[in-house]
């Protein structure tokens, strides 16, 4: 297959996805969720069945569209594959072909037709101050639209830090009363995919998991999928050995910084931020494609009360300062030695054998004499 290039005519690029690329995508999704590889096949079955392809309604509130932008830049799958083949994206204010009343009509029709079946994705926070008038769509407050649509959704996903807990605009003094969607929809399970922007694969994996298995993946107490937010960045960071060895960058551009030492002293929030950034990286461009990898301290965008709240260069409070007392062994155990029981057993056998031998010899001697 010819390699695609952005200068190719759009028709050519949209021509289709090879089976190999498709299975690769499903496999990547399964692996990034820590599922067995066989789950890739299940995912493939789920998304090739047009009846199971989920309608997705995507609402924008107070945000910068960064989440959408990062999603559009995935290459596994490509944007066109995602919205045409994998999900049925019925409403998305950035990607809608139509506008105004036409778009609104599409939203209402989809909500009505797919009631109880569609996945609602909310990007951006909802302003609650002054009756929600700081974010109006089609003449209605965003918060009302969210509540109304969520009531009919099969699952609600809050994508990005804004939707998860308010994001940058919720930082004091928070003039619009920006509030995260879980707060707005109290009583409903809202899966949070925080991050600024979040890794698109964490979002895609969550959607595909729901689609394949008919339930949400395991969530932590902040309703974040555990497969993506179960570990601290500090735990999987490629610079962790420098931290353990006490090698730090003391200021930007110093020798330690240039040598790729730990960025903790520059205010890295890795030790208090839960996310899988160091494990799955961004944009499929290879090693180092994440903030710390490029030499910038993590600022904790995925962690409520860290990102946009603690100043960038304030050092994080570390709960576990010292490195592990013992590391996972790199050698297998090289066999086992004598156990007391085994030695006793062998001794017993030898004793019985010697005894029996002596008795037999003696008896043989007797019968010899008798002859």
């Amino acid at each position, binding site marked *: 297959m010819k390699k695609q290039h952005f200068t190719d005519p759009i028709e050519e690029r949209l021509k289709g996805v090879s089976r190999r690329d498709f299975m690769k995508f499903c496999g990547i999704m399964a692996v990034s969720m820590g599922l067995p590889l066989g789950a890739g096949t299940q995912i493939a079955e789920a998304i090739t069945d047009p009846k199971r392809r989920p309608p997705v309604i995507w609402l924008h509130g107070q945000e910068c569209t960064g989440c959408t932008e990062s999603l559009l830049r995935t290459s596994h799958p490509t944007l066109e594959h995602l919205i045409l083949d994998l999900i049925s994206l019925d409403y998305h204010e950035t990607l809608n072909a139509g506008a105004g009343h036409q778009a609104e009509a599409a939203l209402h029709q989809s909500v009505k037709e797919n009631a109880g079946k569609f996945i609602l994705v909310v990007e951006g926070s909802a302003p609650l101050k002054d009756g929600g008038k700081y974010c109006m769509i089609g003449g209605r407050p965003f918060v009302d639209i969210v509540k109304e649509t969520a009531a009919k959704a099969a699952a609600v996903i809050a994508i990005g830090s804004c939707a998860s807990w308010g994001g940058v605009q919720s930082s004091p003094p928070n003039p619009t009363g920006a509030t995260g969607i879980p707060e707005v929809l109290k009583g409903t399970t809202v899966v949070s995919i925080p991050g600024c922007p979040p890794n698109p694969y964490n979002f895609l994996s969550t959607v595909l998991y729901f689609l394949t298995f008919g339930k949400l993946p395991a969530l932590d107490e902040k309703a974040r999928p555990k497969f993506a937010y179960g570990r601290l960045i500090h735990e999987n960071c490629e610079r962790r050995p420098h931290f353990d060895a006490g090698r730090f960058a003391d200021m930007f551009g110093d020798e330690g910084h240039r040598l790729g030492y730990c960025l903790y002293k520059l205010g890295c929030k890795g030790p208090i931020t839960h996310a899988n950034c160091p494990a799955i990286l961004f944009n499929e461009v290879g090693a180092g494609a994440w903030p710390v990898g490029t030499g910038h301290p993590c600022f904790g965008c995925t962690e409520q009360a860290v990102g946009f709240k603690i100043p960038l260069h304030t050092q994080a409070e570390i709960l576990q300062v010292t490195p592990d007392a013992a590391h996972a062994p790199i050698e297998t155990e090289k*066999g086992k030695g004598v156990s007391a029981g*085994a030695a006793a057993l062998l001794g017993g056998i030898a004793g019985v054998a010697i005894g029996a031998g002596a008795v037999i010899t003696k008896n043989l001697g007797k019968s*010899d004499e008798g002859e």
Partner: protein
Amino acid sequence: MKEEQPLGGKILTPTFLFCLLLFLISLLFIGKRFIYGLGAVTHMSDGYPWGIWIAFDVVIGTAFGCGGYALALLIYVFNKGEYHPLLRPALMTSLFGYSLAGVAVVIDVGRYWQLYNIFLPWYMNPNSVLLEVALCVGAYVVVLWVEFTPTFLTKLGADTAKSRLKKIMFIFIALGILLPTLHQSSLGTVMLVAGSKLSPLWWTGLLPLLFLISCIFLGWGIVVFESCVSAQRYTLPDETHLLGKLSAVMAWLIAVYLVVRFADVAVRGHLNLAFKGDLLGNMFLLENLLLLVPMGVLFVPANRRKAPLLFLSAVSVVLAATVYRLNCYIIGFNPGDGWRYFPAFGEIFISMGIVAIEIMAFLWFIKRLPVYRRG
């Protein structure tokens, strides 16, 4: 002519019950092995993938089972019909030794459910020594059962079937001599691949020859041993004269073996390792002293008329061949720095259970089937 007869008597003797108890306990460990895997019961590791189940149950077990082969060699190849009275008990010991070695392999092989694949021609690797061993041992177990069938047929009184079988028995007797010659030497060939991992005291291009010679004198040793034990336990005709003659032959073969063994180590220039005083050197000395002493004893004609001396010599020879195989397979084998192996409790117990069932079967067979000739 004296006919073989069942010895009769009680089956549930204290010896039998004790063996039964050991076997039942070992069943628990066998169950544990099949439910939780090899690691739960054994100390085998990537460094020592072969523990005592291979070294003792299979390699030594089948060597103990060479009594039938070694006697058949004398009787049929060298035409010494006088040893015929010893053949049937020896054949029976071979039968148990080999059949249970097969059982031990099933317990030992990690993925035992794949084991049948070795008998499928399209999966065979003709360059593998283990394939040769597996096929030969498998075939020999069948041959042994066929060779032993007349005993069952006598018991059942099926005389027609017996005389028919007798007509084609020569085929099985021939196979019964061919197959052990092939695989007993191959059991030595197996360790050729170990190369420098096996101490130079044992690793040699002559491994197959040494294994073959030692299995033959070991087979004779087992026959003497077993006849002495049975004669002491049950009223049997006095065979000391016959055993003495057999022991003389054995002593001569041991002499040949020792010449080859020492010449080989000396020519390769490793004899100094034997006197280093370390474990390997001492094991080498022990193994060969256990042969040298009985050989010296048996070369004196007067000694060959004394049953206790014949018995002790046979024990010594059996031990020597056992130690030799243990040295080749475990003690002299060093897979690399830091690896160690000593059988685990459950591992030893399973081996013991297999020996126990062998003894039980032996006792049952000689009491209920016509194995021994009575006086």
